[in-house]
């Protein structure tokens, strides 16, 4: 009855996470006049981060499904 692997990335509660390229991250911080550390955080040990293989210091773009806007973008900084 056991099946081997399932992917948490396909779970309906898990939104899409993508690692931003250096250039995109810089543009984001510039747009909102932020320091990296002011972004919300996500831990390196987070199951999704492990899955997408992001490193500490990366900025991750999260495409959330929003009840009011339909779709909304959010960003998190990967920390230890």
């Amino acid at each position, binding site marked *: *009855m056991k099946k081997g692997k399932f992917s948490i990335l*396909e779970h309906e509660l*898990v939104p899409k996470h993508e690692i931003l390229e250096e250039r995109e991250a810089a543009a984001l911080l510039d747009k909102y006049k932020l320091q990296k550390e002011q972004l919300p955080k996500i831990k390196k040990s987070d199951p999704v981060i492990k899955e997408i293989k992001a490193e500490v210091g990366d900025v991750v773009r999260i495409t959330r499904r*929003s009840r*009011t*806007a339909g*779709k909304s973008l959010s960003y998190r900084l990967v920390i230890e």
Partner: protein
Amino acid sequence: MELKIVAGEKEEVTEELKKVGLEEGIAEHIKEDFLPAELTVTFEDLLEIPLEEAYAEDIILMLGREEKGEVKLGDIELKVNKSELSDKIKDELKKKLKVVRRKLTREKLDDIVRKVVDKYEKAKVEPREAVGIVAAQSIGEPGTQMTMRTFHYAGVGALYITLGLPRIIEIVDARKKLSTPTMKIKLLEEYAVERNKAEELAMEIEETRIRAIGKIEVSAADMSVWLSLNEKRLEERYIKREEVEEKIRGIGMDVLVEVMEDRELRIQRKKQSYHELLRLEEKVSNTLVKGIEGIRRVLVRREPSEGYVLYTEGSELKKVLRIEGVDSTRTTTNNIAEIAEILGIEAARNAIIEEMMSTLEEQGLDVDARHITLIADAMTMDGEVKQIGRHGIAGEKASVLSRAAFEVTVDNLLEAAIYGEKDELRGVTENVIVGQPIKLGTGAVELVMGSKYENQTTKRQGAKIGGTGDGKGKKRVN
């Protein structure tokens, strides 16, 4: 079918295509030698790009620049997509505009989109508005209506789930141990359709200990434990006798298992003492023969839109997701800590929103999702689920006075004194305490008179104002 589009310069065409997000796919068809005369695209090519047929034709017409002034579906799509609106509003606007398309002109279309954007911008929360307090009040007020029904339970069949205010508190406190952990297990195709398949799966998940499937007796006469298995129960739970024997042999303690003629099991230990015998009985009766430890009960229910769904008492998300037949993309638990651990912080954020909204809705309370979203955001900000309270968000505030005003006043003040903390008086609470205007809304901005304006006023009023002596040509006005 092959459509020919009369096109302009290559750059011009590709630019147009890019605007409507079509450059991929079609761009390949634009070959140097083709241009500038014409561009050939097969209709199939256009259909491959996910677009409605009508829309595709419209784009072609638009590119062909025929009938100037008339509004095409492509125009609407292009204009609305380029505007700074949220997806949901864009979709609605497009739908409405498409209905009245024939009556529109391009100018009118521009005008409508501009006005919608205007309204949208005005509907946004102003910078520096105290959204947190509004959220707190918006949940707090309906919360008072819930207290009356504290410890109200709603049954899913015979299953009890904490609801109402106790549940809201549980979520907001980010408790790891829930009073009633439960899972909603959705099933894959055939399991969701056939009752016996769903039931078999339910038995696969529900924990079954030996005491539930047979009678255990301790016999002091021959210093052994006798187990007679109940055939009916074994059958119900799809357990084979051999499996049970195997499990008993696997409990350690040097057990000897014999199958007697009347199919009873005789279990003995090498080390014989009355005390050991009682321990053996306990161990045997507690042995798990089937299921997932921690899932005490599983109920099979048929839901109109889903087919068969399993509800559990107890929660073990990780193990359940691995079981064949379980839909590992839609199965959830009400334990947010577990979701954070297995599916990550963003899933936990979603779970907080879902759980709070459904708890409130179940009580007939209508709270705007954005208030709940704000709470979920605050709780998951640092990458882990934190409670709203003195051990979480409120406890990490920078201001001493604010923390002291919240809970455990003396401890906070004492600690602040020991470490020589300073209070910058930036938040609301601390400014209320010292009697200053709070730095929120209009209180958050200071006006600085521009030097140009000041020069004008000083000219008109002579040296009366200008002589205050700050010498920088600027004057601060509060």
